[in-house]
C-alpha cells in the first residue's frame, strides 16, 4: 500500500529531485537500470521539465516562494529547502508523524518542519478550530504527534504547545505566508492557498494535510507546500479621534492642542500593504486584584508602512498642523480581535521581536479604539464610531516613566514627526472619553512630497518640490485639489513672518504632478519650519494623509545686494578717479 503511494508520487518527487544533489540517497542508486525503467525515468524527467515550463512562469507572476526544511531535535540533520512536505503515516522506521521532503524512495523524513536558516526565517502559530484564545506561538518549528490531528510547537515542555491546526505563517521580515495542499501530480489537485492546515487522525500512510473549505473535513491532500508570501496589495488605514471639550490634548511641534487651547480632531493615516499584516498572539496575564482583566490578545499588526498625523480645529475643520511620523517612532496599526481593540500604536515590532508585546511596544499610544468588529487588516473595513478611544502609554505593560498620580498609564511618549515632536496626554481617566472611527481601504490615492531643493533655504530665496498624486486599487476621480501651509517648528521668534508656500496648480489630475514653491524673505527668522501639503479628491483625503516636509532657513553670504554695492562703489570710484588725478597734478 505504501509502495503504491510512493509510486503515485513519482512525478512530484522527480520535479523536486531536479533541484537536488545527484548524490541523494536512493535504494536504486548504483544499480543498473533496466531499459523500460530508464525510459520511464527519462519520461518522468521530461514531464517534470514540461511541468516546470508551465509552473515557473505562473510562480514568477506570483509572490516569492517560501520553502521549508525538515530536521530533528535541535535543528540537527536539517534537510531542504523544499516546496513540498508530507506528514508520513508509515509505521516503518518510526516514521509516523514525521515531516518528509521528496528524495529517495520514501522521502527524507524528520521530526520537525520549519525554518531553513536565519536569513530565511519563517514562523508558525498553532491553534484550535476557533483560533482566538487558543492560539500559541509563534515558533519556527512544528512537529506532528504520531496520532495526527495535532500540531505542536516548542514551549519549553516535553510535548510543547499542541493544537489542531498550524498556520498563520509569516516570514522573518514580517510578510504573511499561505500554503497549498496537493497530491503527487500537483496540477488540478492543488487546493488553497490557506493560512491554516491540519493533519487527519489517524494519519493515512501516504500522508495527509487538510485546509478549510467549508466542509467538516476540509480539502485533504497528501502534500502541503508551495508556500508563498501573500499578494502585496496597498492598503490605507485611517483613524479619526474626537473628544469632549479639551480632549484630545497634547502638543505637536510648537502647536498645543486640546486643553484650554482649542478643541481638535486628530487624524491618523497609515499606508502599507496587506502582505505585511501579520498575526500575533499574546496570552493574557491572569486576572488579579489591580491587574487588568483582558482576553488573550490575538489579532494582526502592520508595522511596515508610513504614518502621518493631522490636527484640525474641531469647529472649523481648519488644519492647525501635521507631521509625518519618523521611522524611529515606529508607528503601526494593529487589531486585537481578542479584546476588540484597534488603532495606531508606536515602537512597533514583529511578534518575534524581544520588545513584543510588553517590553517597548505601545499598542494604545498615540490612540486606540475599543469595541471594534473583527478584521485581519487586509481588506476594506469600516468602524464608524467607537464609544471609547484612548491614548495610554504603557497600556500593554511596556515600561516607561510613571504617569501622573491616579493614572494607570505611563507619561506620554514623545514621537518624532516631520512637524515636530508629538506628545499626547493620556486620557484613560477622562469621562466622557474621546471617541473615534477607524477604516481601511484598498482604493485610495497618495500624495508624495519629496524634500525641498535647495535645502536649507537662504534668506530671500525659494525652494521647490515636485508633488505627485498616485491612485491605488482603481481609485479614479479625475481631479484633486491641493493646498499648502507653513508652520514654524523651531524658529527664532516663533518664526514670524513665516516663509510662504504656493502651488503651481491647485487643481491637478489624478495621477498628476504640481510644483510646490516655498519662499523666504529677508525678514524670515532662521530656524526649522515645515510645509504641509493637503489634498482632497472625491471627498477623500490622501490615503497617506497630509504630507509634511521639514526645511531649515539660514542666513548666508553672497547675493545680488553685495554685487550691486560693489558695482556702485566701482562706478563712483571710476568717476572720481580722473578728478582726483587732476587735483593731484594741480
Amino acid at each position: 500500500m505504501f509502495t503504491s503511494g510512493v509510486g503515485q508520487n513519482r512525478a512530484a518527487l522527480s520535479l523536486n529531485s531536479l533541484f537536488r544533489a545527484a548524490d541523494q540517497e536512493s535504494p536504486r542508486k548504483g544499480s543498473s537500470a533496466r531499459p523500460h525503467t530508464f525510459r520511464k525515468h527519462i519520461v518522468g524527467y521530461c514531464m517534470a521539465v514540461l511541468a516546470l515550463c508551465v509552473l515557473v512562469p505562473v510562480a514568477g507572476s506570483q509572490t516569492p516562494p517560501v520553502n521549508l526544511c525538515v530536521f530533528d531535535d535541535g535543528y540537527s540533520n536539517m534537510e531542504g529547502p523544499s516546496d513540498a512536505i508530507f506528514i508520513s503515516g508509515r509505521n516503518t522506521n518510526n516514521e509516523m508523524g514525521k515531516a518528509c521532503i521528496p528524495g529517495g524512495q520514501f522521502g527524507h523524513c524528520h521530526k520537525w518542519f520549519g525554518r531553513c536558516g536565519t536569513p530565511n526565517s519563517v514562523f508558525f502559530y498553532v491553534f484550535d478550530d476557533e483560533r482566538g484564545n487558543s492560539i500559541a506561538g509563534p515558533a519556527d518549528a512544528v512537529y506532528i504527534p504520531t496520532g495526527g490531528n495535532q500540531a505542536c510547537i516548542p514551549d519549553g515542555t516535553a510535548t510543547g504547545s499542541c493544537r489542531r491546526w498550524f498556520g498563520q505563517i509569516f516570514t522573518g521580515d514580517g510578510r504573511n505566508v499561505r500554503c497549498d495542499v496537493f497530491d503527487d501530480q500537483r496540477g488540478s489537485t492543488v487546493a488553497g492557498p490557506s493560512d491554516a492546515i491540519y493533519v487527519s487522525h489517524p494519519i493515512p500512510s501516504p500522508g495527509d494535510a487538510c485546509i478549510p473549505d467549508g466542509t467538516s473535513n476540509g480539502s485533504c491532500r497528501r502534500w502541503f507546500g508551495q508556500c508563498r508570501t501573500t499578494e502585496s496589495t496597498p492598503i490605507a488605514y485611517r483613524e479619526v479621534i474626537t473628544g469632549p471639550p479639551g480632549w484630545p490634548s497634547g502638543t505637536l511641534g510648537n502647536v498645543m492642542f486640546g486643553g484650554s487651547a482649542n478643541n481638535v480632531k486628530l487624524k491618523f493615516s497609515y499606508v502599507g500593504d496587506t502582505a505585511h499584516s501579520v498575526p500575533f498572539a499574546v496570552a493574557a496575564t491572569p486576572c488579579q486584584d489591580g491587574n487588568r482583566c483582558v482576553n488573550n490578545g490575538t489579532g494582526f499588526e502592520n508595522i511596515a508602512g508610513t504614518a502621518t498625523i493631522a490636527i484640525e480645529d474641531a469647529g472649523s475643520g481648519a488644519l492647525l498642523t501635521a507631521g509625518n511620523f519618523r521611522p524611529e517612532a515606529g508607528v503601526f496599526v494593529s487589531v486585537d480581535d481578542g479584546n476588540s481593540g484597534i488603532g495606531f500604536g508606536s515602537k512597533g515590532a514583529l511578534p518575534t521581536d524581544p520588545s513584543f508585546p510588553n517590553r517597548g511596544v505601545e499598542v494604545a499610544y498615540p490612540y486606540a479604539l475599543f469595541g471594534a468588529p473583527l478584521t485581519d487588516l487586509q481588506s476594506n473595513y469600516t468602524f464608524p464610531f467607537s464609544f471609547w478611544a484612548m491614548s495610554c502609554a504603557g497600556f500593554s505593560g511596556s515600561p516607561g516613566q510613571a504617569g501622573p498620580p491616579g493614572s494607570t498609564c505611563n507619561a506620554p511618549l514623545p514621537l518624532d514627526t516631520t512637524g515636530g515632536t508629538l506628545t499626547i496626554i493620556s486620557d484613560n481617566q477622562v469621562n466622557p472619553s474621546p471617541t473615534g472611527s477607524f477604516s481601511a481601504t484598498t482604493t485610495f490615492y497618495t500624495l508624495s512630497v519629496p524634500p525641498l531643493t535647495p535645502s536649507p533655504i537662504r534668506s530671500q530665496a525659494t525652494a521647490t518640490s515636485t508633488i505627485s498624486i498616485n491612485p491605488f486599487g482603481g481609485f479614479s476621480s479625475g481631479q484633486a485639489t491641493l493646498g499648502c501651509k507653513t508652520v514654524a517648528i523651531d524658529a527664532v521668534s516663533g518664526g514670524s513672518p513665516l516663509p510662504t508656500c504656493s502651488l503651481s496648480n491647485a487643481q491637478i489630475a489624478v495621477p498628476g504632478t504640481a510644483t510646490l514653491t516655498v519662499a523666504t524673505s529677508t525678514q524670515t527668522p532662521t530656524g526649522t519650519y515645515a510645509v504641509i501639503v493637503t489634498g482632497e479628491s472625491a471627498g477623500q483625503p490622501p490615503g497617506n494623509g497630509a504630507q509634511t516636509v521639514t526645511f531649515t532657513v539660514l542666513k548666508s553670504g553672497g547675493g545680488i545686494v553685495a554685487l550691486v554695492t560693489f558695482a556702485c562703489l566701482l562706478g563712483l570710484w571710476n568717476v572720481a578717479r580722473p578728478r582726483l588725478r587732476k587735483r593731484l597734478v594741480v
Partner: protein
Amino acid sequence: MRLQTRLYKFSLTQEVTIRIGLSVLFVTFTHQLQWQSLRMVTSEAILRTSLAMGMSVFRVSADTINVNGTFFQFVTACTFVDVFMAAIPLVWNLQTSAARNLIELFALAVTLFGLNIVRLQTAQVLFAHGASWNVADQVVGGFAYFAVWLLVWRLIALRLLALRRSRDHRIVE
C-alpha cells in the same frame, strides 16, 4: 615662457580683457567646487571671534553655526575664495618668476582671509545690533569687494609704474 612672449604681442587693452576673461572663468570654476574645509575653517574663525566678543555661539554642522539664536551657513561666497581666484589673473606678473608670483599670491590669500574674517565679524556685530541682514552682510560685503578691488588695482598700478620706469631707463641708455 611662450605665453609670456605671446601676451607681449597684445595691446594693454587686449591684455586687460584677457585677464578679466580669465578671472570670470576662474570664479565660475571656483563655484563648481564645494570648498568644505575652507568653509569650516571660516565658520570656525567666526565662531571663535564671536565667542571672544561675548556672543552666544554654537556649531550646528560643518558649515553652519548659530549666533545668538540665528543660524548662519557659510557658503563658498563667504570664504572669499572666489575673490582670491578672480584676483589671480589680474595680479599675475608675467615678468617675474612663477615662484615669486606664488609667494605674492600666498601673501594675498592671507590678506584676503584676514579681510574676510573682519568683514564677516563686522556683519555679525551689525546684525546683532539690529541691522538687517542685507545691510549687515551684503552691503558690508560690497564694500569688502571694493576694498579688494582697490588692493588689486594698486598692485597692477605699481607694476605698470615699474614697467614704465624700466622702459624709460632703457631708452635713456
